[in-house]
């Protein structure tokens, strides 16, 4: 197994490992990370991001009420979560009064969680301290002039850079799982192209949703809402990310990946975003959007749409439902007022049933993986505990239908996915074994330089 992985460049694993342990919250089980030495650092980064996100979420819930995130297109990635800088305390105090009993107990537990989980977390420190300053500043009139040194931050928020990073990591998971020798240049090009496509889609999404975003607590600090950037610039930025991104995928990787990328952008901006306000079918479309990046990663590596690609896509598709449905459960007021048609508001029973159904589907899909020769049979066995756990939480959510069960399910989904992908990767069927059997699928990055295995 290690031979097939020798192409993976060893990153500063030690440094990352230390950093991760420092940031690790209560949930981390150190003995699981014995396998670290042969795990690519992008996994660690994913994990980092999820921990970071979890912490941000806990603090955010502490200060703010009812938010939710839907990640990008892909959103995949789901329409997922987006973390915003924390809101002003003063405004929050006003908002707390109508729904005090529920939220107060909740914010207490989350503050306890917060104390437990916050270690060094410079991010959370940053977010806690300037809240007072923010509230003053926000009441002032600001000049609508673009300052160049603000631009990177603004563009990062416009493109939902953290979400984009998660999307790229799911795409790289797809790339890694493909049963071909690892080609680093191809990997880089595919990741970069996917990242650019994701930035473009996110920017267009924000461009479309300005008045709605200003009315929802979670999204009211976005750059377009605050007038930090003009809509024209947002569109130009989206075009300047999207066009090179898709071109890079089509020319530098292969046309299939480029087509999938373009299709995903279209699906997210032109189907999912308007559909959010028209019918609950948006959740299913959003789940497809989230499922496409790993498929893109796979096709980048192999050049063809195999059953394995569809399986990975299927796993991500199923994952979106418990993730998003649990998240949207706490945001019903904002969705209702904002006019978003979400299952949690209009069909709550269906919302919970679908979440549970897809948790169980994850178990099924994990079992199919060895059948398709992607992983060994140890994969369903090892992944069974985490899949059973998320299914159990899904069942609790289905039965109890309250805030605490929805939160538990949501936070579980945050670590469940990277863990599942990690286990899948460690159980990947060795390429060399396949070479012996003589059934290596064709490679795809014709124009890119290749590090060929003998």
């Amino acid at each position, binding site marked *: 197994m290690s031979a097939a992985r020798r192409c993976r460049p060893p990153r500063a694993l030690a440094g990352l490992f230390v950093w991760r342990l420092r940031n690790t919250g209560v949930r981390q089980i150190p003995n699981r990370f014995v396998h670290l030495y042969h795990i690519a650092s992008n996994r660690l980064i994913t994990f980092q991001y999820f921990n970071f996100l979890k912490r941000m979420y806990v603090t955010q819930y502490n200060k703010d009420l009812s938010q939710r995130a839907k990640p990008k297109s892909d959103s995949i990635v789901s329409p997922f979560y987006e973390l915003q800088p924390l809101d002003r305390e003063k405004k929050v105090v006003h908002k707390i*009064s*109508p*729904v*005090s*009993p*529920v939220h107060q107990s909740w914010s207490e537990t989350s503050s306890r969680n917060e104390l437990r989980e916050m270690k060094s977390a410079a991010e959370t420190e940053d977010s806690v301290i300037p809240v007072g300053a923010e509230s003053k500043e*926000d*009441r*002032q*009139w*600001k*000049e*609508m*002039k673009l300052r160049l040194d603000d631009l990177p931050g603004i563009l990062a928020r416009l493109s939902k850079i953290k979400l984009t990073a998660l999307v790229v990591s799911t795409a790289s998971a797809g790339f890694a799982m493909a049963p071909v020798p690892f080609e680093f240049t191809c990997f880089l090009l595919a990741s970069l192209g996917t990242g650019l496509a994701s930035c473009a889609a996110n920017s267009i999404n924000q*461009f*479309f949703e*300005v*008045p709605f975003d*200003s*009315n929802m607590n979670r999204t*009211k600090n976005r750059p377009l*809402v*605050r*007038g930090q950037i*003009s*809509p*024209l610039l947002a*569109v130009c930025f989206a075009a300047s990310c999207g066009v090179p991104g898709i071109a890079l995928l089509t020319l530098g990787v292969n046309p299939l990946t480029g087509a999938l990328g373009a299709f995903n952008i279209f699906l997210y901006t032109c189907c999912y975003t*308007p559909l959010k*306000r*028209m019918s609950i079918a948006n959740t299913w479309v959003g789940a497809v959007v989230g499922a496409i990046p790993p498929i893109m990663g796979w096709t980048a590596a192999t050049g063809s749409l195999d059953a394995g690609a569809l399986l990975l896509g299927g796993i991500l598709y199923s994952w979106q439902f418990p993730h998003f449905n649990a998240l949207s459960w706490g945001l*019903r*007021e904002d*969705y*209702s*007022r904002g*006019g978003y*048609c979400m299952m949690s*508001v*209009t069909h*709550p029973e269906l919302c919970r049933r679908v979440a549970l159904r897809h948790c169980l589907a994850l178990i099924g899909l994990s079992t199919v993986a060895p059948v398709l020769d992607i992983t060994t049979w140890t994969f369903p066995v090892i992944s069974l505990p985490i899949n059973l756990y998320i299914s159990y939480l899904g069942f609790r959510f289905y039965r109890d*239908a*309250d*805030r605490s069960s929805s939160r538990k399910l949501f936070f579980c989904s945050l670590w469940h996915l990277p863990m599942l992908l990690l286990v899948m990767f460690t159980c990947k069927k060795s390429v060399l074994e396949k070479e012996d059997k003589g059934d290596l699928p064709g490679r795809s990055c014709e124009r890119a330089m290749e590090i060929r295995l003998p």
Partner: protein
Amino acid sequence: PPAHSHSDWIGPPDKHSNLRPVIFYVPPEESALERRLREARQEAQASNQRFWARHNRAFRQEKEEFIYSRLKAKGLEMRDESGQKATLNAEEMAEFYKDFLSKNLKKHLQYNRDWYKRNFRITFLMGQVALVRALRWLRRRKKNVEQ
């Protein structure tokens, strides 16, 4: 915003509509195109403000009424002994949210169409204005170089 400023100014979110008002700068030598853009933006701002202020007010009002009617059905008052405002839990409120959303769906569909049209038009005008300005700047530079 200061009188000498040459740019637009954006303010804090409005109490009712949660939208941020913009004060547009009117340059002395504003072209017809720029005027069209500014007017389109002002119109969109006004329309958005009207819609959301009315919508949010309706939401708050209906929410109050719902809470009041539910509390009454349960035999409770709006404020309990300690003077705190009595509230319903999330599950009871969920029914209200569902109702409110379905009641307002048609209104939202209309507003969406409207908003998308305005947004595209404004952005397109911005593009035209930017193009004209860029060409003007290039022409001026060429003239300076020639002189």
